[in-house]
């Protein structure tokens, strides 16, 4: 056991899995000697060399498309896209090919590949460096979408993702890359993809979040002094609907915290599922605390854009008092 930050846990997972499985490769921009702009791949190039830790040309569609080719021919690429905003140039490869190859070939080929992406706002970075693009991929068939919110989960989920026979988009909440440490076993363990985490149990209300917003939710619950279930979705696709429904059936009230723009965000899907399976349990409308339907602003206004504990508290209170 060591006390690790989230990014250290990512690094450890990569280190250990590359050692264990010689078909695991890491590729992307600046992942080699530089160890990644966030240092997620630090030390890998030194340990595993130029053929397994590959600095690529600056081309995201190329990185993903070539990774698919590597994957169908026996490798397990872990591609890094440097920032969330730069997934967009790779969008076509992800949705038109990566998510389809198993289905298109009726199982003859499949893509065991992971795309790691530093995700979300909170570090006052330039434009396109603070995006929350999960909706695009949760809506897309054939890809799994995972996002840890703790160092422990980061390691276990990343190992599960690399071993998953299907493509996994692995978002890493960059705001909390180094925000806190947690005991992370050095041993090999996985956390099942598709299962949410009950962060805390309560009776009055369900608060749902993922990524860095789990911390916002936790803070808000303390501030609001409510007895809440807090659910960290952990896997965004496939969604763990049962955990959500069980909780909401119990509490009858729910607030969802989402960093992405509001409209057509994942929170809407969660609400739709609650509507479908737990409507009669609801004592109040499910509330959304989200980013706004505008572009993530540059740093001066970033904090106004992101969900804050205060906004979540307000929503909790409104929901409790409905």
């Amino acid at each position, binding site marked *: 056991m060591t006390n690790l930050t989230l990014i250290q846990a990512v690094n450890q997972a990569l280190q250990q899995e590359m050692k264990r499985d010689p078909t695991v490769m890491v590729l992307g921009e600046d992942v080699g000697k530089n160890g990644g702009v966030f240092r997620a791949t630090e030390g890998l190039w030194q340990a595993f060399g130029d053929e397994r830790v590959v600095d690529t040309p600056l081309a995201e569609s190329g990185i993903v*498309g*070539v990774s698919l*080719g590597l994957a169908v021919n026996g490798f397990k690429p872990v591609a890094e896209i440097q920032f969330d905003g730069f997934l967009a140039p790779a969008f076509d*490869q992800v949705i038109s090919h990566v998510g389809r190859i*198993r289905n298109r070939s*009726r199982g003859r080929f499949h893509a065991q590949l992971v795309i790691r992406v530093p995700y979300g706002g909170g570090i006052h970075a330039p434009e396109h460096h603070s995006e929350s693009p999960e909706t695009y991929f949760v809506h897309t068939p*054939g890809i799994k979408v995972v996002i840890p919110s703790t160092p422990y989960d980061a390691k276990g989920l990343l190992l599960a993702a690399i071993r998953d026979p*299907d493509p996994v988009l692995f978002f890493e909440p960059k705001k909390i890359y180094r925000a806190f440490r947690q005991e992370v076993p050095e041993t090999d363990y996985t956390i099942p993809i598709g299962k949410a985490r009950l962060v805390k149990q309560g009776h009055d209300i369900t608060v749902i979040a993922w990524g860095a917003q789990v911390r916002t939710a936790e803070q808000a619950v303390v501030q609001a002094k409510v007895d809440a279930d807090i659910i960290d979705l952990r896997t965004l696709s496939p969604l763990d609907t049962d955990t959500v429904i069980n909780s909401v059936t119990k509490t009858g009230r729910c607030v969802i915290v989402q960093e992405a723009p509001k409209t057509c965000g994942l929170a809407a899907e969660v609400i739709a599922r609650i509507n479908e399976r737990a409507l009669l349990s609801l004592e109040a409308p499910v509330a959304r605390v989200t980013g706004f339907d505008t572009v993530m602003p540059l740093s001066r206004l970033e904090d106004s854009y992101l969900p804050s504990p205060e906004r979540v508290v307000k929503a909790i209170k409104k929901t409790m008092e409905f």
Partner: protein
Amino acid sequence: MPRKTLATFRVSSLSILDAAGKVDPNLDPKLPAKTLQQMYSLMVLARVFDDKAIALQRQGRIGTYAPVKGQEACQVPSALQLTKGDWLFPAFREAAATIAFGIPPERLLQYWGGDEQGSKCAADKNLFPVSIPVGSHMLHAVGASWAAKLRKEKAIALTYFGDGATSEGDFHEAMNFAGVFKTPTIFLCQNNQWAISVPRERQTAAASLAQKAIAYGIPGMQVDGNDMLAVYVATKEAIARARAGEGPTLIECFTYRIGDHTTSDDATRYRTNKEVASWKKKDPIDRVRTYLSANNMWDENQEKQLQLNTAAQLDKIVQAYETFPKPKINDMFDYLYAQPTQELVQQKQELTS
């Protein structure tokens, strides 16, 4: 104003067997008669298959189909040289290459007939499914061949695409990755002069597509794409280089799409009969027959026999296609992931109950 010359580049072209069926003796690869006859027969099969597929589409027995007519010499001599372990990444107009690669042609009908099962090739064949998004599949060829190289295997990947595809960003990224990582990838561009209704000159101001290789520091050449021997030789050399670890090659096959873009297209809207007629005179199959006959490697009897055999083969292909079981509704849920998600299981139940 005088300047220093930083570098000079040369792009070459190759043609061996001309439209009249005459071979350039200096360039003749002197292939065994058997090989020549095999390639000829495959081209003939591809041609009748193509006509049949169009007829089937007209009868509503398959869906949209993209004819290969006129481009057989780009595909047969190149795909035929792939060996066990090699990879083929087609676009959507590669019936001839697919057949030459040894895939049962009824699979092509199954695919164009609207069933994904047609894309499930045998375990010992590395044929990637048809890729509809133009230009997007070359990256997969780069990746797969890179994997072979990393494992120190001799396998290579051959990928086909059109003149239009060279305009897509993914073409650029694929060529560039291949150059940087020296992957054993053959980029075979079938410049058939048209991307649906858009002529080659509108795709790029470059005088040739072959010269695009210069941008990636890799070899590129233009060959007569209606010349089976030139394509054979160019591909052979490129494959040898790839297997020897010398990296990728771009081959521009200068050819022509004789038919409509697909069965949904009407090419008379945008090009002249005169142009089509002039290219028909350069037919890639006719010239081989002329050459083989003139050199005592083919006679009328053999031709008759081939026509009969091919017709019989075609009947069997269509029969095989029509006896394939219908796709099941479950198929669309069951192949998306190794294990269907809970949501998919529910959705399947909802639909089928």
